[in-house]
């Protein structure tokens, strides 16, 4: 095993002197992602606030058909804009988020006591117009309720009769469980960091060594090849772990600066939580180091290896993307799936749920097994002479 430790020590020393390695493993993830996260939160919050507080500017067609409705809207703070020439086109071209059209038959139906038609012209598929659309509809609904009650009262009927059900919201979500964004984003970032932290080292110690023509002389030394490869992989794992630990620490530092109130978030990463997350994610670093080393060993040059890495980095994104599209409830069998289980577990930890030991155990164990199988494959790869000499 002396050969293994010698290789490990040398790789660490060499890569600590490598600005590219330090940047990729120890700076990029730990610095970029937390800043990105905070920036995103600030942006979302301010955009949301702006939309909520902005005066509602509402172009209306057919103002003359419903003067009392217009008065009501104005009382509620809406600024009625003059009638646009081509409302559909305006909405489509995003000039205005929503246009209200009062149809000519409105007065007639109104006096007859029939539902009087108005059209809300909008494009709900545009996220940013959701807030104004909601506000316009709420105002119209409010007005309708008010008039409805008055009509019933005029006919001597208690308006309550028209509201057979009263809905009360009992919100059981804790502040923590509302931190949806963080629940999706943090596992995603950590998963990617485990891979980005390992990428440079995995390539430099294999494809890079081949490219620099130092692999052949290295393998002539009396050290079993699996020890040389394992020494390299352990270096890669250590860098990936360091990258993860630093990223977590930097999240910890950055979180107090987050706009907490807007999201009802109470996301503090205590030391215990940090360690739990690190425990959950560590096997991923091992898996990533083994997988990336395995792939990079086939490449003839650093550049060729890089072209593989671009695809591999998609792998840790898959579970997060699935959760974004379709949030699912964590179940025991899911803990057997690497990357997937870490995503779920970190989500649970952040949400402040208690997680059973069995889940931790399953997740760590299944990921480790696959990681070690890949590592064993990588360790024996250079027993094939073809791969040693395939340098360009």
């Amino acid at each position, binding site marked *: 095993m*002396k*050969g293994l430790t*010698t*290789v490990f020590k*040398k790789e660490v*020393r*060499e890569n600590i*002197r*490598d600005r590219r390695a330090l940047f990729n493993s120890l700076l990029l993830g730990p610095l970029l992602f937390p800043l990105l996260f905070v920036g995103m939160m600030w942006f979302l919050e301010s955009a949301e606030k702006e939309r909520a507080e902005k005066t509602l500017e509402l172009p209306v067609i057919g103002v003359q058909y419903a003067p009392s409705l217009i008065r009501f809207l104005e009382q509620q703070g809406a600024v009625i804009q003059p009638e646009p020439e081509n409302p559909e086109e305006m909405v489509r071209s995003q000039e205005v988020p929503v246009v209200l059209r009062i149809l000519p038959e409105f007065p007639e139906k109104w006096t007859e006591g029939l539902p009087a038609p108005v059209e809300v012209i909008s494009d709900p598929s545009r996220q940013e117009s959701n807030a104004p659309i909601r506000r316009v509809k709420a105002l119209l609904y409010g007005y309708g309720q008010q008039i409805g009650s008055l009509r019933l009262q005029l006919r001597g009927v208690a308006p309550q009769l028209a509201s057979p059900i009263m809905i009360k919201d009992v919100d059981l979500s804790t502040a923590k469980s509302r931190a949806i964004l963080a629940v999706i984003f943090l596992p995603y970032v950590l998963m990617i960091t485990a891979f980005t932290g390992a990428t440079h080292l995995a390539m430099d110690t294999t494809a890079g*060594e081949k490219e*620099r*023509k*130092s*692999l*052949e*002389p*290295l*393998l*002539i*030394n*009396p*050290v*079993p090849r699996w020890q040389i490869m394992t020494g390299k992989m352990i270096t890669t794992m250590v860098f990936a772990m360091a990258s993860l630990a630093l990223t977590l620490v930097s999240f910890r530092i950055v979180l107090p600066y987050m706009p907490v109130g807007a999201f009802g978030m109470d996301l503090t990463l205590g030391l215990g939580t940090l360690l739990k997350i690190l425990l959950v994610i560590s096997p991923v670093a091992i898996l990533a180091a083994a997988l990336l080393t395995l792939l990079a060993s086939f490449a003839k040059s650093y550049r060729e290896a890089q072209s593989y890495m671009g695809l591999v980095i998609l792998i840790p994104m898959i579970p997060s993307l699935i959760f974004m599209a379709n949030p699912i409830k964590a179940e025991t069998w899911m803990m057997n799936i690497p990357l997937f289980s870490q995503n779920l577990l970190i989500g649970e930890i952040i949400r402040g749920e208690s997680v059973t030991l069995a889940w931790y155990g399953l997740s760590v164990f299944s990921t480790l097994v696959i990681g070690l199988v890949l590592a064993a494959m990588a360790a024996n790869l250079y027993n094939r*002479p073809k791969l*040693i*000499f395939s*340098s360009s």
Partner: protein
Amino acid sequence: MIVVKNLHKSFGDVQAVKGVSFEARDGEITGLLGPNGAGKTTTLRMLYSLLPPDQGEIRIDGLDPTRDAMEIKRTLGVVPDSRGLYSRLTARENISYYGELHGMNKNAIRDRIENLTRTLDMGEFIDRRTEGFSQGQRVKVAIARAMVHEPQTVLMDEPSNGLDVMSTRALRHYIRSLRDEGHSVVLSTHIMQEVAALCDRIVIIAKGEVAADGTAAELLERAGCDSLEDAFVKLIGSEEGLLA
């Protein structure tokens, strides 16, 4: 002492080595001379156990590279065709990495590097990072790391490739000193002058086979020529690869 008998190696359809046999004795410099692509590098790779032969037998001081790979690697000093250094490590760190891989202890490595620095005249750059080293400096470091564990048998693949006149002279001087100390030295080259100036025995390899084998004088006699160059052309039967 190296004994090679009837060595064969193919890569797919290409027969790189087909029936190479020779001997390299202790206290002698044996030159594998042949045009580019003759099978010299492949032969050497089989000697230092990085390639398994398809057929044939190799004995280095009685050891078989296919069976005693680890043991053989301990007794061999190899300067292969690839001689990449770690550019972020100093020359000393490069050499001492190999010493550690050979299981040497720190003191032994330090003393040995002192020694090699003197013999190979590396004092000026031994503690500099190897990034930006000249070809001559690189070859010296590559040789030093191959020799750090004081191997009995030395294999060098085209050692003077890319060296200027002064570096080549220094290299030849060093190789002769190894011979005088009783080492068995095998070097491959396609450069006639190198063989003439350096080698005690010459093994001419062409198209994967041994075309001729003997001292310079013996080869001249056999070919009936006055110059080694003519003898070489005559013995391998073509001028192919000679101008490279």
